[in-house]
């Protein structure tokens, strides 16, 4: 009886340890699951091109000022939009050019991450082309001009007159496991 209880206890401990291990792995499995979930539901698709809507109309009664902002963080690039702002009608497609220059003597890979103001702008902003959809590789002292093509949908609330689209370039370090999917 003694041995039976004891071995039953050890068996139970083994089962629970396996369960613990499974839950630890599950914690990590949440990472790809989260990304897939966001992708499928379209919650977090700032870095994916939007599809052009056919019956798009232009609200010519309204004007919206779009301000362009550009930043770099910890990488030796200069980065700026060729125009600081634009006045457009909601529904009107516009293309804006940005310029990046690598000021260093080495090849640098960067990734731009967008940020919008007001925060819900991503619901009304459709981007068809953007340098942020892929990583950018610049040779030493190379300069490159890159377009962003987008439309602000007429559904945007009427109290919004000015919006800001901001990009920040971060360096992608080789072999650090932080490549953009």
């Amino acid at each position, binding site marked *: *009886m*003694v*041995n039976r*209880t*004891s071995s*039953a*206890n050890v068996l*139970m*401990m083994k089962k*629970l*340890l396996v*369960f*613990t*291990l*499974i*839950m*630890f*792995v*599950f*914690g*990590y499995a*949440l*990472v790809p699951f*989260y*990304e897939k979930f*966001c992708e499928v*539901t379209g*919650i*977090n698709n700032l870095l994916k091109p939007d599809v052009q809507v056919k019956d798009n109309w232009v609200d010519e009664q309204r004007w919206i000022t779009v301000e362009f902002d550009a930043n770099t*963080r910890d990488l030796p690039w200069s980065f700026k939009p060729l125009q600081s702002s634009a006045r457009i009608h909601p529904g009107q497609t516009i293309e804006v050019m940005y310029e990046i220059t690598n000021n260093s003597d080495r090849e640098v890979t960067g*990734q731009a*991450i967008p940020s919008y103001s007001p*925060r819900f702008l991503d619901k009304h902003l459709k981007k068809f082309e953007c340098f942020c959809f892929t990583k950018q590789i610049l040779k030493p002292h190379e300069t490159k001009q890159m377009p962003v093509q987008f439309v602000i949908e007429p559904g945007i609330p009427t109290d919004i007159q000015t919006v800001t689209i901001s990009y*920040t370039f*971060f*360096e*992608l*370090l080789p072999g*650090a*496991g*932080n*490549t*953009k*999917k």
Partner: protein
Amino acid sequence: MAAVHGDAHGHGHDDHHPSGIMRWITTTNHKDIGTMYLWFSFAMFLTGGTLALGIRAELFQPGIQILQPELFNQFTTLHGLIMVFGAIMPAFVGFANWQVPLMIGAPDMAFARMNNWSFWLLPVAATLLVSSFFVPGGAAAGGWTFYPPLSTQGGLGVDLMIFAVHILGASSIMGSINIITTILNMRAPGMTLMKMPMFVWTWLITAYLLVLVMPVLAGVVTMLLTDRHFGTSFFNAAGGGDPVMFQHIFWFFGHPEVYIMILPSFGIVSEVIPTFSRKPLFGYASMVYATASIAILSCVVWAHHMFTAGMPTVGQLFFMYATMLIAVPTGVKVFNWTATMWQGSMSFETPMLFAIGFIFLFVIGGFSGVICAIVPIDIQVQDTYYVIAHFHYVLVSGSLFALFAGAYYWIPKWTGRMYNETLGKWHFWLSMFFFNLTFFVQHFLGLAGMPRRIPDYNLQFADFNMVSSIGAFGFGLTQLLFLYVMISCIRSGEKAPQNPWDGATTLEWTHLPTPAPYHSFEKPPVVK
């Protein structure tokens, strides 16, 4: 039957054990380990309480007087971490160690040696946490939930915190495995699952929750660690990660965690109320099912902590309704306790006072929880003192009051001596008064918009903050009275009768002498 205790537990059952400090370091006795857990958690309670008093002293008046903002942030962060992981959780494990074997008629915990390890990991983790105040850059300061990017940017203090959380998690997992195995495999003959005392049931479910979510917490802090030092980008947007994902994974652990801290207190209250009402617990089976329902629901409500982090409306609606649904099994419990008292011959000794105080104040905390669950209101009160008031009503007047109730209820069984009833009642009434003085006004502060975790505030909040700070110091000092009551009980309390509570019907009161002998139930009792 003499062989029942045998060598199955890896230690002899003779009464000769090392004396002095070695007794405590090497002990594998569940009662010794339970005692150490309780003293450890009380020491951590005073440490975390001191930090809280630092916070309240700074908030006594507007402006910066005592704590610079950086240090203030460290105080709020470590107050939360120490109270959650150092005080409340180990205290419940201490109760489990003492009471689970006694209540199910087992001679000891299933894995006595592992039990010793899981305790002695705690002082190591506590040392890491407390010493982090003295490293360059100070302790972690990004809040007890350690959201990135603050936690990926902080200094050495954050690393110490991460290791402490790892160790505490390992300790909790080992403790839970021990408790589950003990409860499932070592019950006395005749004690079916549905005859187990409610405290044992709540701990069984809590232990399952712990092995479910603690590994996820270990995973998420490991991700944080590799983000900080090994170039991964789980939470770093620049590398393709997502800081909001941290919040999802953290709260997948974090919400069950709050039920880990409240379910055992439901268990204690479910023992105390029937004893002092001299009636069996009303609706025992529904209590078991309600506990299980709460545990299951607690795993699908995590994102109600993140309503303002960005979420589709359908997600907000799901988490709002799922959260409100928890009020149903919780309501079942509250009604069952009330029905247990109904027409009972009640008496109001200190454990009963704390248990009734628990029900009264926990219900307030529960209702403010339902209010916070409503998305449009939550967006208003997010990160304000309303939330602070809500979770202190469930954690202080919930978990902590239940711990006090349990301590007064079982101290005669543990020590063979009675506590001073008059002083115990003073402890209750002073705690009740000062607790409400501290936290009730914080509802108003939160509704008026005072943000949490900020060392300074607008002049309009001054009066309520002064009231709250006075209450906090009163509450803190009152707990020294508890320490005095307990020490004087242990050293010089009156001898307790075999069963000082004539309504108590669980095994430790009916089948064991008082105080409980060092080795109990070597021959298992037969439960009819």
